[in-house]
């Protein structure tokens, strides 16, 4: 069963006509998004600045009420 599924996907990818260029675009896009943008440019502001949910909640309340 697993062998058949593997074969199905393997042959499918192998026989793709537009595939190579598209896969290159997809892979480059995902690398840029997740390994560069997410890591270096888009840290989660609250998660990286506060340790607990309580701290995060208190900070946001302070922001909203100051």
């Amino acid at each position, binding site marked *: 069963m697993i062998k058949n599924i593997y074969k*199905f*996907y393997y*042959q*499918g*990818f192998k*026989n*793709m*006509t*537009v595939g190579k*260029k*598209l*896969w290159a*675009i*997809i892979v480059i*896009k*995902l690398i*840029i*998004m997740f390994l560069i*943008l*997410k890591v270096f*440019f*888009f*840290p*989660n*502001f*609250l*998660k990286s600045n506060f340790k607990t*949910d309580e701290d*995060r*909640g*208190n900070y*946001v*309340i302070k*922001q*909203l*009420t*100051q």
Partner: protein
Amino acid sequence: MEHIDFSLVDWSRAQFALTALYHWLFVPLTLGLSFIIAFMETQYVRTGNPEWKRITKFWMTLFGVNFAIGVATGIILEFEFGTNWSNYSWFVGDIFGAPLAIEGIMAFFLESTFIAVMFFGWNKVSKKFHLLSTWLVAIGSNLSALWILVANAWMQYPAGMKFNPDTARNEMVNFWDVLFSPVALNKFFHTVTSSYVLSAVFVIGVSAWFLLKNKEQLFAKKSIIVASIFGLVTSFLIIITGDGSAKNMAKYQPMKFAAMENLYTGRQNAPLAVIGLLQKDKTDTILDKQNISLKIEIPSLLSIMAFQDANAYVPGIHDLVNGNAEHNILSYKERSDKGKIAITSLAEYKNAKKTGNDSIANAALTKLNENYPHFGYGYYANRNVNELIPNIPLTFYSFRIMVGLGFHFIALFLVVWILAKKDKLEKKRFILYTALWSIPLAYIASELGWVVTEVGRQPWVIQDILPTIAAVSQIKSTSVQITFWLFFVIFTGLLIAEIKIMLSQIKKGPETELIENEIRIN
């Protein structure tokens, strides 16, 4: 909110708008083309005619290109929530979590699994199972859109939640109220039907190119007939859901409705300006008022659109800003005062809880709950009232261009369908060129729909509760500017890649050897 970095707010908004607009260039074709392909393949399975298989496979390739390049572009928006809009992300609590988690699971199982069968399964699985997979890809991709649109609808009409002052988060109390809110249901159907119309225009436009080049005439005519019927049916659905959007807007977002119509003074039998030219009124020193000239109006239509009653009173911007006791409309000043009480009560509640003073905490909580529906207005207590009015020219013109193009598409569907049925379409070169050049117009109409929705609800991130000025993270605006330009470059690159690959696939046309192979197999 004494010191607001407007540069930060503006760049964060601009970045979100840029990524959302680019993301939306890829989404609607996936939503609509998947159904058109499913109809074409159904024809193939029903008739056994290999020409339908050839047609299905051609459009499936274009679907694949669009899907592959567009996939995951929406995740960027989630990155931005966490970095640029952290107050908002925290404040919405689990309202977004549940729908987005369901979307992720559905997208993975329905789309990712069956999309492989759809592309790789020809001649490997039975015809009926392949067809089922194609339909499941169409249904799955549309259901994925449902959850995102539910989340967006909640921001326009926050329902089914309760604010928790201990955590500063809105907590979902009724999932079904969130899912089945009138705004959510209508938004979903309006958005997906608009995507169907775009896809129908795309198929007709590309097919028209083949006819203009005297290539693949049978393929092109069959594609045009399917797409024009699909486009006509969904255009009528879009009119119904568009009407629903107008009613929801008038009821839940009256300022957006008034801005979209440039209606300053509320009135009964309010007319709808079909077209008009806006000019800034220099005599109004308080509001950035626009006068409308060269207009063509339909009497009472706005009242009917909003409340199904020609005599209904449609509030104008002056009513909403200054209040109207006769029609039970609070002024912005009153709402700002109530909002300020809500904000102060939240602070009092937190301090009282910290010092263990339960009676003060309970009193503050009561005041907070009473005034919570006006919470966001508290940030505007001492600010210019124009900050609470959306960009009127942008909303006004976007709506009219979108609707005008919508009627153009209906006429196009009707004309090409009749001509294709009579077998006269290939001779009507003007119609074919019109169909071809309608492709970019469909994208413009689709994007303008979002402009009306999102620009029209400014300054709110969550309607009446949280404005953009309170939702942004305290980060440097320069970092947002850098990522804005990064996204601009990346998305433009993706768009160019999509267009180039699409064009090369279109020029190749449908597989030529397929029919011969199919005849041999059969």
